[in-house]
């Protein structure tokens, strides 16, 4: 099941195509990186929304100029301890300026949601049973202070602190 950026359950309007599956006209679909690389021309002309599934051992830079072509990029956590997609998300949002939907898929657990959101993810595919049992929106509210600058643009503690010191000095 799918959660939006607030942790609320939402419908998945995307169809995730297998590598030899055909897309229906006008249907929003995601395709694998492999398929994109092999059939680039064919997909470039399509007017319906297109999404990309990027495996977690691919550098985000491989997408290159085509980044704007995608309305969604799905990154993968094959096991929750495999944290490569955090860096991918960080770079896609922060360095390459990706503005579409960034979706976390795979072994996505509630207690990682906030880390993911700070890296730039804004939708989360989670296990159906877990989706119903857990209080997902709460995961986003657990912290409102952070020590690092991140893609959520929350002002880090260090900057807040310096500002409060300066105000005190004035």
């Amino acid at each position, binding site marked *: 099941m799918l959660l939006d950026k607030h942790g609320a359950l939402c419908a998945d309007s995307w169809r995730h195509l297998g590598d030899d599956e055909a897309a229906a006209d006008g249907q929003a679909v995601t395709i694998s990186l492999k398929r994109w690389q092999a059939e680039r021309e064919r997909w470039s002309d399509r007017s319906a929304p297109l999404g990309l599934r990027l495996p977690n051992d691919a550098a985000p830079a491989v997408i290159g100029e085509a980044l704007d072509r995608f309305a969604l990029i799905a990154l993968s956590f094959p096991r929750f*301890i495999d944290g490569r997609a955090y860096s991918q998300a960080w770079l896609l949002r922060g360095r390459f300026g990706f503005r579409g939907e960034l979706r976390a898929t795979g072994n996505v657990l509630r*207690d990682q949601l906030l880390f993911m959101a700070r890296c730039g993810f804004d939708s989360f595919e989670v296990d159906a049973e877990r989706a119903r049992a*857990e209080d997902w929106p709460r995961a986003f509210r657990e*912290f409102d202070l952070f020590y690092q*600058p991140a893609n959520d643009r929350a002002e880090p503690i260090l900057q807040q602190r310096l500002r409060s010191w300066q105000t005190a000095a004035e």
Partner: protein
Amino acid sequence: MYRYDEFDRKFLEERLVQYRDQVRRRLAGQLSEDEFRSLRLMNGLYLQLHAYMLRISIPYGTLSSAKLRGLAAVARRWDKGYGHFTTRQNIQFNWIRLEDTPDILAHLAAVELHGIQTSGNSFRNITTDPFAGVADDEIEDPRPYCEIVRQWSALHPEFSFLPRKFKIAINAAGEDRAAIKIHDLGLRLRRDESGEVGFAVMVGGGLGRTPILAQTVREFVPRRELLAYITACLRVYNQYGRRDNLFKSRIKILVQALGIEKYREEVEAEYAAMGAERAALALPDETVAAMQAQFAPPAYRDAVNDDAELARATAAEPEFARWIEYNTRAHKRPGYAIVVISLKPPGRPTGDCSAGQMETIADLADALSFGEVRVTHDQNLVLPHVRKSALYDLWLRLGAADLATPNIGLASDIIACPGLDYCSLATARSIPIAQALSQHLAKREETIGPLQIKISGCINACGHHHVGHIGILGLEKNGAESYQITVGGSDNAQAALGGIVGPAVAAHEVTGTVDRLIDTYLRLRQDGEQFPDTYRRVGLAPFKEALYVAR
């Protein structure tokens, strides 16, 4: 000393509420043990052989008297009355109940302590020279940088699920008392030709089953760029570090596989591409200055005749003189000394400290050391600023609490992990080996001079055996404990890994074997040589020979 402000306190409160809820979900059956495991580990809670073990972070080994009293209270109320100081300058409590942990952490939060990231595949406690800020051979105080890195690395969104744990150490003195070459990332504070402060950055050091010393990625990173450069180092590791094999997942294996040149190339390319992110992570002078102000020296008094008084006292009392010789170090301020409190009375478990002892030390710190205490990576404690005129009084009061053993740096000042007495990873016991050795060697340790014996109860090497002058590794062979012995290791600026002297020996043979190795060293050493110096000069052969002859 760094004090939490409203931001740090609120952050820790939020973390506590989160953890309390995680424990509640676990006890209610909403989280499986498998899922809960990674959550409890991120708060320092391990499941050991007999009970849960809670590891509390002591950032760069710095404690206030209030913190030490907080730890004493935990030992008394929720454990069996003692704690164990570790080689990561942390403390562990070995007899903890899961359901108590939220209350324990709440209790510790009140004194600005926590268990965040004392386990798990992320940044571990940042360590440094236990004499930081007071050593007379220091370029600049490393603690402000430790605190900056500590804050930046706390619950880092990108790097909390690295391939494996990640240990950072910072050294800022001529001598390396932080063992930076056995760390995933070692930072050596230095100045460049123009006098600007920055860091030499080393990566890929570590012990465990593949001991490797760190190599230099960059000779000089200006302090302004410190966080940005570390980010580049970590990002390359997060991307390429191995995740298919737990034993090959540390950064040292990646650096070894790529070669330091290729790793450096990747890091430099990433660093060059960082752009706006680099600006966001920059440490302008005013930020560093604001942090340095947190570590301002205490209100020292001017020295008056302290040395003459001290000389009289040591002349009158040889036991006191011995303690002064081994347990005190030069302080950069005239009239003051650094005092090392030994947690290694011969025959007792190394690094253990009772609640009563912690409270005594806290009281002494308040009375005689501006309320400050340090933890060393060799499992002792430090009172960093004691007036020389107060040393005699301090010695008497420490002695009354069994804390005045004059053995710092000597044979009975052994490093040992908890081993099979507690640890679920251990393959052999460490504590009884250390107890027997310290008791046996104490009698002649002054003749032997400086000697570092380090004992690990398994290949993971928490006892740093590879870099002991004499290293002892506990193994399990056909159901019996056996011990592999190495010689010539060292963890200082000339860091070296020890060489194996022969087949592993049984537990009851360890003391005799170590004796013969020490005898060989004493026979061969030349003036002023310590064990590693003699080893470098004569090699492994004479030590092997001594054991072979005995067999």
